[in-house]
């Protein structure tokens, strides 16, 4: 009897703590939506539900910003993120398959080398990559953001290899007996069976590219027709804050995270399982 009342108290404390944390986590998002639906005159009001409620900030964002930038930013971000996703899934899966399934000399060494690169800060490669792309005359184009996605990556390869290792060997042996080539085994057995892990990598890649600030800032011109949503939003901050228009800024922020929020609610399981997968078994 005593232990059940003790459990009740503990459950209560758990809920209180979790709820406090949850408010801290979600309040910025609620606030973002709330401010975006207010009249500019009420931007610093503390009401969560705007009174009166208005869509005018979204209209203004879409129509009145210089050069009608918003549709361009959206298109650029989508384009770069999707191409990056394709490059990452394809090239990481190829390497992961080689590391997980094929026996070749130097496999362990090469894999260890690849994993070690996870620890190289991305700033280290930023400078030589910039110089490389400069000599290829690609600075100011979107190629420096897309091309590197097609040369694999330690994180994606590691993630997919972990999953590939869980696929039963018997399947491979049986396919081999039937005369399947390496390519058949990769494309017809491993890829279809690894959908959860591939989905996870695709989502991570999309998210990281969509949210990236540093690389577009370095490589893309500060022209609102050619840069990404994230950089555009950072520029808006300077412009709009000076004009005192937090309401429009928040509308911009909300629209910029909306695609990811939708993706997250559709594919929440893959997000979470993907992270859990990267954390188990080294």
């Amino acid at each position, binding site marked *: 009897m005593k232990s059940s009342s003790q459990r009740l108290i503990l459950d209560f404390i*758990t809920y209180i703590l979790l709820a406090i*944390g949850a408010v801290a986590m979600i309040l910025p998002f609620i606030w973002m939506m709330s401010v975006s639906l207010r009249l500019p005159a009420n931007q610093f009001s503390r009401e969560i539900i705007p009174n009166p409620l208005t869509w005018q900030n979204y209209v203004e964002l879409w129509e009145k910003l210089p050069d009608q930038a918003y549709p361009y930013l959206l298109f650029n971000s989508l384009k770069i993120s999707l191409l990056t996703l394709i490059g990452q899934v394809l090239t990481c899966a190829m390497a992961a*398959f080689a590391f997980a399934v094929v026996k070749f000399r130097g496999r362990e060494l090469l894999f260890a080398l690849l994993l070690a690169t996870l620890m190289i800060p991305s*700033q280290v490669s930023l400078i030589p990559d910039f110089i490389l792309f400069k000599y290829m005359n690609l600075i100011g184009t979107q190629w420096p953001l897309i091309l590197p996605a097609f040369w694999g990556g330690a994180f994606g390869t590691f993630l997919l290899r972990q999953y590939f290792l869980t696929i039963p060997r018997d399947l491979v042996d049986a396919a081999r007996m039937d005369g399947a080539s390496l390519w058949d085994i990769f494309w017809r057995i491993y890829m279809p069976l690894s959908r959860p892990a591939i989905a996870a990598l695709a989502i991570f890649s999309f998210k990281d590219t969509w949210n990236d600030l540093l690389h577009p800032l370095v490589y893309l011109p500060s022209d609102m027709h050619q840069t990404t949503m994230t950089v555009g*939003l950072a520029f808006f901050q300077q412009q709009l804050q000076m004009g005192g228009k937090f309401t429009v800024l928040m509308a911009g922020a909300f629209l910029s995270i909306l695609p990811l929020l939708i993706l997250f609610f559709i594919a929440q399981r893959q*997000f979470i399982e993907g992270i859990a997968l990267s954390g188990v078994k080294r």
Partner: protein
Amino acid sequence: MDYGLRPLGRERLWLWGLLFPTLIGLAFGTIGSLLATLLLSFFSWDLIAPPRWAGLANYIALVENDAYLKAFTNTITFTALYVPGVVIFSLLVAVLLNRKIRGVSLFRTVYFLPTVTSAVATALVWNMFYGKDTGLLNFTLESLGLAPVCWLCRENAMMSVVIVNVWGAIGEGMIIFLAGLTAIPREYYEAATVDGASNLQQFFKITLPLITPSIFFQTLISAINAFQAYDYIYMLTRRGQGDSTVPVAVFSIYRNAFNFFKMGAASAQAIQLALLVALFMGLLFIFERRYVVYE
């Protein structure tokens, strides 16, 4: 790991085809870049005139440069505050969520939201929260009868920036720890309860030792992120000319390379940052040998 298919005949070519993109990436993207940056750090180069050999001058200049030393110290301070913050808070959330209560998946979703959304967008809201006269935080403080705080002024900016960065990273850490926690067999706790161990004793004697691999992993990931932290800091503290009230090493590298086109100096800073990361990783792996329990 000895198992593996042997490639047959022409499949050997296929194998290298599969690995080709990764090898290019190692050559140009990571390992090659590291070597190139190292080489560049011994030159003086503005991308226009041909590079000039500078020997150790770039490195010596760093030690004498107060602004850079400040940035370097800032990176270390930031890491020292951020890493324990992320590990402790996400472990706490995971432990709470791991008690079998209702609504776990709802809480998990909410805690995970900041991890998904862009730092640039959420930093805009935090910027409003941190407002000196109009911000929600100071409003709350004042209604509690406390003095308002200048959150983004020089003396407090580091703390404010760490808070937002930790806020944004709890979701991912929570998932790592939840995966570790659910892997601990329930029988251990049942046996301990039979023996009369309290909840607190169970946490310190069972949970904590068995979760050390996850703690190690999360510390590693958080540290890698901390040394490279940029987005929130840029959005909350940037000033003209790529400067910031909390200039961390990344700012310094960026400024030198892309505002002033001092490629040699920027490379020397990048190498220093890489050495700092390597040093930290080395220490972490020594700790791992001594304290991390693998079953």
